[in-house]
């Protein structure tokens, strides 16, 4: 009898420890899962051959239960550049990234204007107005 009680005690201890691990893991995941629908980021850097560059990105997290089409509209120096339509599934984030030379670029054949501003406007298929927008300025 005493022997079986000892076994029950060990099993219960294993169960309690397992539960504790699951609870801690769950709390940690909940913390990391709390994301905004659109997150913007700008990283400035340097590239050999290109000079100063800037990486501007928008990360879209579809928090709905169904898939949606998102449109990312990009303007460079206040001139329309592209509008990319992508289907984003729930729990499968999408990242739009553009890497741009910031300084004026020269070559024997052409000149590229310096970058003054970049703007992102994000639309979702079920809303007429933009869900988010941002403008980065370079001086």
């Amino acid at each position, binding site marked *: 009898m005493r022997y079986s009680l000892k076994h029950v005690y060990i099993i219960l201890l294993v169960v309690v*420890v397992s539960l504790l691990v699951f609870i801690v893991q769950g709390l940690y995941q909940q913390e990391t899962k709390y994301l905004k629908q659109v997150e913007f980021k700008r990283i400035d850097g340097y590239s050999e051959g290109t000079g100063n560059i800037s990486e501007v990105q928008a990360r879209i997290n579809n928090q709905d239960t169904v898939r949606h089409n998102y449109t*990312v509209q990009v303007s460079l120096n206040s001139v329309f550049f592209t509008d990319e339509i992508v289907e984003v599934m729930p729990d499968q984030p*999408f990242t739009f990234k553009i890497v741009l030379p910031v300084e004026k670029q020269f070559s024997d054949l052409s000149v590229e204007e310096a970058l003054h501003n970049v703007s992102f406007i994000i639309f979702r298929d079920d809303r007429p107005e933009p869900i988010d927008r941002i403008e980065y300025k370079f001086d």
Partner: protein
Amino acid sequence: MRRILILLLLMIFSLIGPVEAYVYDHSLDPVGDVNIGTRITDTVSPSPSSEVFLGYQMRFKWWRPGDGVAQLTFAPINLARNEYIDSYTPDTTGTWKIQSLEYIKKKSNQNTNSEKTFNVVQVPEFGPLGLAIPLFLIGLFYTGLRKRML
């Protein structure tokens, strides 16, 4: 008369020749199957026949297995190394696809489509429970042993 016309047409077509398509070479790092969570870099070199100038960009599309785009990047040409680079960390197992399209002076060049696929695998891991349980059992065994010794 008809034969002469056909011969003339054939001569004209042979002079024009086939339209030369761009050839893009994707090189992935690391090579072969990769474990989930490993950062993959794709370096694309334009074909030697294509001339590369300022204002050239490559649009990289990283497709998840099945469907859905995970990342879309516009990367400028690196004039010093004459290549385009993009990277991504896959979050799902299966066959991923990288689709690239070159942009010249902010306009897409439809003849420049190219694709590359790679496999993402899951190497089995113990996880937090895999560490907690053996540690707990070792502790239990050690305390039991100490009791017996005392």
